[in-house]
């Protein structure tokens, strides 16, 4: 079996404009099944917009996107069906604030996948244990720390059995000492073979976990390659400047 043959994400000629502001200026990207790709770049470079185009939370102005076997930009795309296969984790967690932690995982399974409640509860408990959240089933999201909330958010995204996970700066809203607990969950997920597209500022995570790092600037992919190449020997001046600023902020 050659899994490389059909990429799980295929983006061609992607442009995105907000009014007069062109945020993405022609992105071509293929991601293979099981690959972990980190998106880095200065703020405003279009990283988040690119990520949000993959599950069509942002509608592309131009270009085609195929993700997890769904033609996302086709005229007859069933986005609700497609999005089940594409999990997403947000910077600000976005847990359903009026539901308990358990219901955050149970309700999507019951409502979206039509799984019987008892079975959904069992699956929710298993996922919560996997991300290290136990004994908080009946708590409300606001009663948890940011790190705990983000781990629940990852578990919730996994509850509808996605084939691909998108992470939009998952640790940017967290206190520094809490970042690790979220990254280690993500690392575990990568080790299990999940395909992941991660917008991040955590260079050590990118170096350690990513199969490929993309450096985005001004709406185009400027560099692409294994983390050792892109992070240690950037070919372009833009990437060099950015990495220097991130790794040596005081200079």
């Amino acid at each position: 079996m050659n899994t490389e043959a059909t990429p799980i994400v295929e983006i061609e000629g992607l442009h995105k404009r907000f009014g007069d502001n062109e945020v993405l200026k022609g992105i071509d990207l293929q991601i293979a099944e099981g690959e972990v790709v980190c998106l880095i770049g200065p703020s405003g470079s279009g990283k988040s917009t690119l990520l949000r185009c993959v599950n069509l939370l942002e509608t592309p102005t131009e270009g085609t996107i195929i993700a997890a076997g769904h033609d996302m930009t086709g005229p007859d795309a069933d986005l609700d069906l497609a999005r089940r296969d594409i999990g997403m984790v947000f910077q600000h967690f976005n847990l359903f604030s009026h539901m308990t932690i358990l219901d955050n995982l149970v309700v999507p399974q019951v409502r979206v996948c039509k799984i019987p409640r008892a079975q959904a509860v069992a699956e929710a408990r298993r996922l919560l244990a996997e991300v290290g959240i136990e004994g908080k089933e009946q708590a409300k999201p606001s009663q948890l720390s940011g790190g705990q909330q983000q781990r629940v958010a990852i578990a919730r995204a996994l509850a509808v059995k996605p084939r691909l996970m998108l992470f939009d700066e998952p640790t940017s809203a967290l206190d520094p000492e809490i970042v690790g607990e979220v990254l280690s969950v993500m690392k575990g997920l990568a080790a299990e073979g999940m395909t992941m597209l991660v917008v991040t500022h955590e260079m050590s995570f990118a170096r350690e976990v990513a199969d490929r790092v993309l450096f985005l600037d001004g709406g185009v992919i400027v560099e692409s390659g294994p983390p050792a190449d892109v992070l240690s020997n950037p070919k372009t001046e833009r990437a060099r400047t950015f990495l220097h600023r991130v790794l040596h902020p005081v200079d």
Partner: protein
Amino acid sequence: MDADTETADRRMTPARRQRLARAVQYTVLAAIVIVLAVVADWGRIADSFFQIDIAAAMFPAVWTPFWNTIVYTALAFVFGMVVGVPIALMRVSAFGPYRWFATAYVEIFRGLPALLVLFLVGFGVPQAFPGIQYPGGVYGQVAIGLGLTSSAYIAESVRAGIQAVPKGQVEAARSLGMSHTRTMITVVLPQALRIVIPPLTNELVMLTKDSSLVFVLGVTTSTMELSKFARNELTANANATPLLVGGLLYLLLTIPLGLLARRLEKRGEAR
């Protein structure tokens, strides 16, 4: 130099100034109370408002209109919610015609006086459509007549609540594969309704008082509400005591409503 120190001495510290201002305000309040107490003709006031025998004679007959006030309010509020929430959803719809209809509906029924709508439902519609029967007779007329106005206000409150739910909640729901409608029902509305508990309580209190307009439909002893009953008693006794009793009974309804709303709000926050 000398003049400078003098002004500095005379200038008060903020704390002293505040104490002095408080003292002045308490003095004014005390003066007003004393003047009122001295000037008012207490015997006359007692005669007009506090005739125990007139008040006692209103019972137990007053419980029927008291109960009717509750029923009218509840019916109109239920109608207002059942119509108002969908109108609110239409107001935020991506589909133009829904938005246009909902906007027109809100503008019309928020703009018309409740009394006029009540007349319209009670007399205008039956004339235009002869033979029309409202379910529950006068109760149906009240539910629709007061409910139409109420639904416009409720729709606006709920719309504000929907728009106050963070966008991230919708994005999370959609990214999990929930449809637009499912997202609204499961994620947005439950949060929006919690946000609008205070304005909805307001609406319920307003409705309690607006039920006093029901008399224009022509009510009998069994369908009379509190204001009409109090007014009848006022005329019959040529005395204002029934108004005081009626007023207290309104407060007996509206004050617990406020307390209940505060409890609900607190519970929403705690969760």
